[in-house]
């Protein structure tokens, strides 16, 4: 196995173009598990940790551009106020050690349906900045996940950054697991209120082959909420929203939970997240 260690971003892109089978490694918290369990024997590892361009983040009026190597710990500490939903999700990841090494881009690269960053990225309408020697493109999160642990990067592309819109409104994330820490989610759900647009965004995790939005639920609830009056959520709206979210999911039975439970729990999480977010909006 070759270990490639580019020092600059252009060099990394060149290596990846030459050897599309080389597996990028950032925090290594997914890659090394696969290597250690002998599930994967890549012909080459492409170590991205030396590349200065990937370690920062920057802001404009509309979005924060998070470099590929920014860890969960840094999201929590540096971006908690501006990206509360992503910070909430980051806090539930693994353990302190994993949060110190693991990156959002790595979560995207692994594209596990259970990855904790995905639901909120979907709910916020984030996009992935992918780059290759051929150029740069922005892939909306909804188009990024294409199958179980599969994403839409071309073989020569690397993730440069994630663009997360600064959403003017409350955000929530919750997950159910078989324990509190170091757990693969049984199901998870994120929600963001885009107040100026009068829109609710959603993201479902661990309940379908890919993370997905619950579009019908979003359409329904965006229209049903009393945005102007800030009144309490009308009776039945939360429950209906939960049902629509659950209907969007297509979960499976596995050792962590049954499909029936995942659907049920998603409905509860969706209703509760909506209630919490709405309460915050009412008080704002």
């Amino acid at each position, binding site marked *: 196995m070759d270990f490639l260690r580019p020092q600059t971003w252009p060099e990394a892109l060149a290596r990846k173009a030459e050897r599309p089978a080389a597996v990028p490694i950032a925090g290594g918290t997914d890659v090394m598990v696969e290597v250690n*369990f002998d599930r994967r024997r890549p012909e080459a590892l492409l170590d991205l940790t030396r590349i200065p361009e990937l370690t920062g983040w920057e802001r404009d009026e509309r979005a924060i551009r998070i470099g590929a190597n920014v860890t969960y710990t840094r999201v929590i500490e540096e971006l908690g106020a501006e990206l509360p939903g992503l910070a909430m999700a980051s806090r539930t990841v693994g353990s302190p050690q994993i949060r110190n090494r693991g990156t959002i881009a790595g979560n995207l690269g692994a594209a596990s349906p259970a990855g904790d960053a995905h639901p909120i990225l979907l709910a916020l309408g984030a996009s992935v900045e992918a780059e290759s020697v051929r150029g740069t493109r922005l892939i909306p999160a909804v188009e990024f996940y294409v199958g179980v642990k599969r994403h839409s990067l071309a073989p020569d592309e690397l993730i440069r950054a994630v663009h997360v819109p600064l959403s003017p409104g409350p955000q929530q994330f919750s997950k*159910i697991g078989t*324990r*509190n*820490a*170091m757990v693969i989610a049984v199901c998870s759900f994120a929600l963001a209120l885009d107040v100026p647009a009068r829109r609710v965004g959603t993201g479902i995790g661990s309940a379908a082959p890919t993370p997905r939005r619950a579009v019908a639920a979003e359409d329904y609830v965006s229209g049903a909420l009393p945005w102007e009056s800030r009144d309490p959520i009308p009776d039945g709206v939360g429950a209906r929203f939960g049902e629509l979210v659950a209907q969007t999911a297509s979960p499976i039975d596995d050792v962590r939970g049954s499909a029936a*439970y995942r659907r049920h*729990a998603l409905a509860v999480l969706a209703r509760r997240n909506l209630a919490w977010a709405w309460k915050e909006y009412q008080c704002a």
Partner: protein
Amino acid sequence: MTAVAENTEVGRARLRKEDARLLTGRTRWTDNIAVPGMLHMAILRSPHAHARINSVDVSAAAAAPNVVAAFCGKDVAETQGVLACAWPVTEDIVMPTYLPLAVTEVRHVGEPVAVVVARDRASAVDALQLIEVDYDPLPVVLDIEAALAEGSPLVHEDKGTNKCYTWVFDSAAAGSGGDVAGVVADAEITIKRRYVQQRLIPSFMEPRSVIVEPAAGEGGSWTVYSATQIPHILRFLLAATTGTPEHKIRVIAPDVGGGFGGKLAVTPEEWIAFAAANRVGRPVKYTETRSEAMVSAHHGRDVIQDLTLYAKRDGTVTGLDVKLLANMGAYLGIVTPGVPLLGAFMYNGIYKFPAYRFECTGVFTTTTKTDAYRGAGRPEATYAIERIMDELAAEVGIDPMEVRRRNWIRHEEFPFGTVAGLTYDSGNYEAATDKAMQLLGYDELRAEQAARRESNDPKQLGIGISTYTEMCGLAPSRVLGALRYGAGGWESASVRVLPTGKVEVVTGSSPHGQGHVTSWSQIVADQLGVPFDDVEVLHGDTRTSHKGLDTYGSRSLAVGGIALVMASQKVREKARVIAAHMLECSPDDVEFADGAFRVKGSPEASKTIADCALAVFAAHNLPDGVEPTLDSEATFDPEGFSFPHGTHLCAIEVDTETGEVAIRQYVCVDDVGRVVNPLIVEGQVHGGVAQGIAQALYEEAVYDAEGNLLTSSFADYTLPSSADLPDIVSDRTETPATSNPLGVKGVGEAGTIAATPAVVNAIVDALRPFGVIDVQMPCTPERVWRALKEVIA
């Protein structure tokens, strides 16, 4: 025998002497040890739960780079020995041959089939892929009841049955009580329940590891390093089953990183490493991966419990009938069949009632064998009785604590002969319970519970009770003999005072994290009047500690600690004679106080143990007939068991929508008798409670329909982390045991035994108004939700 001379060390919260080493890892774990010329072994394991082995071809592996040897079971069939079960619980027990390396058939996924020995570990692991095994899959049987059904596939075809044994205790036959059949007709209340103890994996921190240095030529000897709880038993069984002379085998258990019963085992891997080292004539090391540990080291629990409790309308219990089906797995480990028997005498718990019957049937399945896991038998018993006492309370319509009070043995009734035929020497259930209820705020919580019920709060509150007892101090050898166990239950210790007055202690008890070195130093310091730091505790090497029965079943202090007191006293008595000689008086006129011998009435002249040691070393002027040594050895065989007890209470919030549970408060008041080191006791209680909570909420070994272990890593076998555990408020009452001179009872398993029913009782208590009477462990959010859904539908 007066136990304690001085009491400045015993009872003191000393930091543990061994921790600097253990916590930094700068110590001798087996895997850290390298001996000259050492090779590395990897094991090919069966991917089938049941299959005939037609052929094994190791030739390609043997030719691989860096490989020194490759072989399969057939190649060592004559020399590899067998793995012994030391507890044939009945005369007609079915005991299959248990081979380290399978020869003709495999009976669980993970069973060792072939071996590669190479110059480095990676080469050995890589070469495993070159071994070709031709299997004919055979039908699997995983479920205990299915295995007993007519026409079930057989795990051991030649035995003609999957039934291992049926063992019965009947209080009428034993003379310790009446006949359960006799109370059935008059019972005003009859409660039948089935509880299922899921399969668990003892998750020791250090995976198992072994190094075997074979004899170098004729007359040579073998050294075996192993991460084991039982170096002495390992040595004995290696000698007995491989024909190697016992005096030629030295077993060393260096520092061992936890066991929880999982290393109370003689393992296929040890025997295979022994065979491999003999075959290649060089030292061989094997260290398992975590997943290998999970698949092949023994599992625990996996018992179906059918209980029938008989009682009067006022809540007085009149009889209990217990029927168990216990999953043995595919083979019998060292105490596999006996584990349920360790619980057989405990289903009556802290209660007095007139009639009791217990019946256990052991069953073979094509799964990893089960054996001792922290508590071994007693957690199952405690769980069953503490759960069903809550059911009785609900049936009678009184508070679950009240039903317990009406049935428990009152303080003034000790010593008490129980319906299971044991004599509980001491106890004070009232004191522990009162303290625990105050610490929890029991009455306030009941009020809050009522309010939440009233308001239909989606989060309901439950209060869980466990008023447990258990038996420790394993064990009076004659009792073990009567139960057909193969060995005794004594323990040995020796004390050697060096010329400068420093002390070496050798214990037969083999610690693997419990803090023996610290507690033993405290005991000796008091006994001999020497500083705590002047005591060195040696253990785990059969060359220094030639005699012992090792560590399990909370026995170390209650048995090994007493041997140590006895050995210390022998030294002190001898020193008294020498001191008297130096003080020119009769030994009868010498008293031992404040760490020195003094003449009664004239305390200014004194001689310390160190003075005596130097005098012995010089030997210039000893009394006539006194040998020039200040050493002693003692072996203690207990007369009876000791019975720690206590009251564990918890308050749990149950989310009735998602099924999630959160332990809000956990309070335990344990009575483990006299406390040698409160810090160590608290540590044991904390760890024990964590493991008990783990069974209630998190852990389960799950097989798929083909017999593959689905939970073979910590991603899926969900051990709780600190983030999952509540703050544990732990306190104590101290009712000294009268069964041993230190008054100690044992604390290694108490927390685990107590916690599981406390937690599940709380969950069921929260949900009882909905009609829930059980949630299958582990009570995951999904299980809780299902339990609710079933009763609401």
